[in-house]
C-alpha cells in the first residue's frame, strides 16, 4: 500500500469516505475523520443523517412560483399571504434569499434564478427561468420588480436583461443600491465602489 493511501478499511468504508468528499470543503482527511466519527461511536447519528439525506434527496423540489428549494409545491414564503404580493425580488441563489430575509427589511416575495446569465458557460435566459419570471409578471398583479442580483459583470448583465424584458411588460423595475458598506472607511473602499457610490448619491 502506498503512503497516504486512505483505502485500508474495505470497500464500504472507502465508498463512504469517497462520498463525503463530494461535499464542499471536505478533503480526504476530513472525510476520513467524519466517517470514523460516525462509525466508531455515533451509529444513531449516522442513521439519522442517512434517513434525512434520503428524505431530502427524494422530496425536496423547486417551488413552482419562485423556484427556490422546497418540499411542497409552493414554498413557505410564496404561500404566506402576509407577504406583499405587489413586490417581487429577483435573487441569484437561495443563499441570497436567506441573506435578504435575515436583514428583515423586505416584506414582498421572491424569485430565485438559481444562477446568472453566463454565455461562455452555456447559461442563457432559459436555464435561469427568465421566461417563467416574465410569465409571472404578466399574469400576476406585480407593481415593482426589485433586481437583487450580484454586483458582478454577470449579475449586472442578468439584471439588465430582466429589466429590458420586464419593462416591456409595463412593470416598474428597480435595482438594489450599491455603495460604501456599513462601518466602511472610505480609504479602504475600492475605486469602483466609490465611483458607484458617488454617481448614485442622494439628497438628504
Amino acid at each position: 500500500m502506498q503512503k497516504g493511501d486512505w483505502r485500508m478499511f474495505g470497500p464500504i468504508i472507502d465508498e463512504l469516505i469517497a462520498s463525503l468528499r463530494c461535499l464542499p470543503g471536505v478533503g480526504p482527511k476530513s472525510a476520513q475523520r467524519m466517517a470514523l466519527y460516525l462509525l466508531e461511536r455515533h451509529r444513531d447519528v449516522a442513521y439519522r443523517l442517512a434517513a434525512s439525506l434520503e428524505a431530502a434527496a427524494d422530496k425536496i423540489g423547486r417551488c413552482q412560483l419562485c423556484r427556490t428549494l422546497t418540499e411542497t409545491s409552493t414554498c413557505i414564503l410564496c404561500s404566506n399571504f402576509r407577504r406583499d404580493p405587489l413586490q417581487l425580488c429577483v435573487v441569484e441563489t437561495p443563499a441570497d434569499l436567506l441573506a435578504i430575509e435575515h436583514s428583515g427589511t423586505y416584506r414582498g416575495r421572491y424569485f430565485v434564478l438559481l444562477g446568472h446569465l453566463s454565455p461562455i458557460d452555456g447559461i442563457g435566459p432559459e436555464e435561469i427561468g427568465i421566461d417563467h419570471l416574465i410569465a409571472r409578471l404578466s399574469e400576476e398583479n406585480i407593481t415593482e420588480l426589485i433586481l437583487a442580483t450580484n454586483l458582478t459583470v454577470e449579475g449586472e448583465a442578468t439584471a439588465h436583461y430582466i429589466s429590458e424584458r420586464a419593462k416591456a411588460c409595463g412593470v416598474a423595475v428597480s435595482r438594489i443600491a450599491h455603495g460604501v458598506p456599513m462601518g466602511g472607511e472610505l480609504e479602504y473602499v475600492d475605486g469602483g465602489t466609490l465611483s458607484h457610490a458617488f454617481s448614485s448619491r442622494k439628497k438628504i
Partner: protein
Amino acid sequence: MQPEPAFVLHTRPYRETSLLVDFFTRNYGRFRAVARGARAAKIGTKKLNPYTQLLIGWAGKTELKTLTHVEQSSSPLTLKGDCLFCGFYLNEILIRLLAENDPHEEIYDNYAHVLAQLAGNEPIEHSLRTFEFSLLEELGYALVLDADAQTGEKISPEKEYWFEPNIGFSLKEGIYSKGASANLFKGGELLAFKNHDFNAIPLTAKRLMRLALEPHIGEKPLLSRNLFSKLKATNTELIN
C-alpha cells in the same frame, strides 16, 4: 517577473474558495490560472472582474498557472446595458479564437481599445466590426476584399460576389438558390468594408463578419450573440 498587463476573460468557481480565471495577457496570450482563495477575499474577486486592465503575476510550469499577484492598473470600466452583452460576446470570441499561450499584442491593444469605446458609449456596431476585422487580420485569416479569389481580378463595385469562408470572394456565376443568398455581396459593399466604412453598410458588415468568423468559432453557436438577438426579438415582438 515583471507584472504583466492582463484582462480577465472569464472566471468560474473552483473548489471551496478559489477561482479558475481565463486571462488574456499582452505578452503571453491567453491562459488559465487558479486564483487561490479569491472567493474568500484573500486576493479579492472584486479585482478579478472582466473589462478591467490588471497587472498580474503568476507561477507554475504546467498548463494551469497559479496567480500570485494582482492589481488594478486602471479604474474599472463600467459597461452598461447592451454593452455588457457586447463584452460577453468579445470575451466569448476571444476564448474561442485565441490559442492558449499564443501572444497577440495587437489584439490585446485592440481589445483594450474596443472596451474603452463600449464604456464610452460610442456606436457599438462600428467598434465591434473594427475589432472583428482586426482580429481576423491578426490571426492570419484576413479577408482579401479587393481581388477575386479565383481569377485575381479587381473587385468591381457593380458586380455581385459569392463569399466562401476561408477562400474569399469570387464572381457570382449562374443562379443560386434563395437560401444561399447570405453569402452574396455587392462589390461596392466589399470596397466600403475594406475602407472600414462599416456605418454605410451596417447589416452587410455584420453578415460578412459573421460568415468570416464562423469557421473559426467551432461547432457550438455563440451564446452571447443569441442573448442579444433574443432580447431584441422579444422587444420588437412586443412593440409591434
